């Protein structure tokens, strides 16, 4: 049991990221039921109050919904789930480009490097 957590970010947000990742990867499907707060707390080795915050945050982001008396479910709004995936892609690309610019690689060069790396020569 027990995940490792970074010091610089609240634990509840790190679990939000983890669950969001699993949804985008298709490890958790639209409409799927999440573990109860207590079960998730035991699995992650964290305080249940932390998981409660994680679920509230996911709910605020419309990624999950809580049905009274039934539990917490991954949203079955597929359009929204696809958007979630695209947002994540955007974020990764943005940070990649930013880092490349920081070390002086301009956009044209960057495209060439990527193509070369992926084995798609010009």
């Amino acid at each position: 049991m027990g995940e490792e957590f970074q010091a610089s970010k609240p634990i509840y947000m790190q679990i939000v990221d983890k669950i969001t990742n699993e949804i985008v990867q298709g490890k958790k499907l639209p409409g799927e039921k999440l573990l109860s707060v207590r079960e998730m707390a035991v699995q992650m080795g964290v305080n249940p109050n932390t998981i409660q915050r994680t679920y509230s945050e996911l709910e605020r982001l419309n990624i999950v919904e809580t049905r009274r008396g039934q539990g917490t479910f991954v949203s079955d709004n597929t359009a929204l789930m696809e958007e979630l995936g695209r947002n994540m892609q955007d974020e990764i690309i943005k940070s990649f480009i930013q880092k490349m610019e920081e070390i002086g690689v301009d956009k044209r060069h960057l495209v060439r490097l990527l193509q070369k790396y992926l084995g798609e020569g010009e």
Partner: protein
Amino acid sequence: MSFVLNNVSKSYGKTTALKNINLSFEKGRIYGLLGPNGSGKSTMLKLMTGLVFPDEGTVMLNEEPVTRKSSEQVAFLTELDMFYDGFTVGETVDYVASQFADFNVEKASRLLRELNLDSKKKVNSLSKGNRGRLKLVMTLARDTAAILLDEPFSGLDPMVRDSIVNSLLKYIDFENQVLIIATHEITEIESLLDEAIAIHYGEITAKEAVETLREEQGLSVLQWFKQLSIGIGE
């Protein structure tokens, strides 16, 4: 359920154990009482369970002063080993159950099963790790308002530590109980805590909500605690 310490001081002879402690604890939360050996952690837990009494100030449980009778509402895991070696694990459960009206035998047998403790085994044949687990079972099986754990991990290997953390998360009744863990082994309980309280030389040097520490200062409890210790000159 509430625990309030108001201006509490306690000395043993000429040695000051606690100075001007002001703290309150609420149900549904997990508190870490963090400090090096000899900082006053154990004294504070003993004050809260009515084993010692303050020289000054008050210790209140549900708005009543803590007395020796308060042990009916407080489960306390001490650093000491308090088993009769001649008893089996099962007899130990029966004995503790006979001493505390709130002892939940059904919960105890579930915990024994989950922690792989054999009821027929003699206590003196248990490994150190299993004795540690048995101590925890005896504490968690009581349906009390407060659970106080004094160094629950000391001398236990990582597997046993994990199983203890697991049982805590499974069996604490968050609607009704408060959990206070005194330890100097911060890494083990870091992700369990709502609040961290640092204690040095008998004084509370800082108190923080764990997630706030990460959010606002980017610090884990361990990093925070080390910074405090440096500030104090240790």
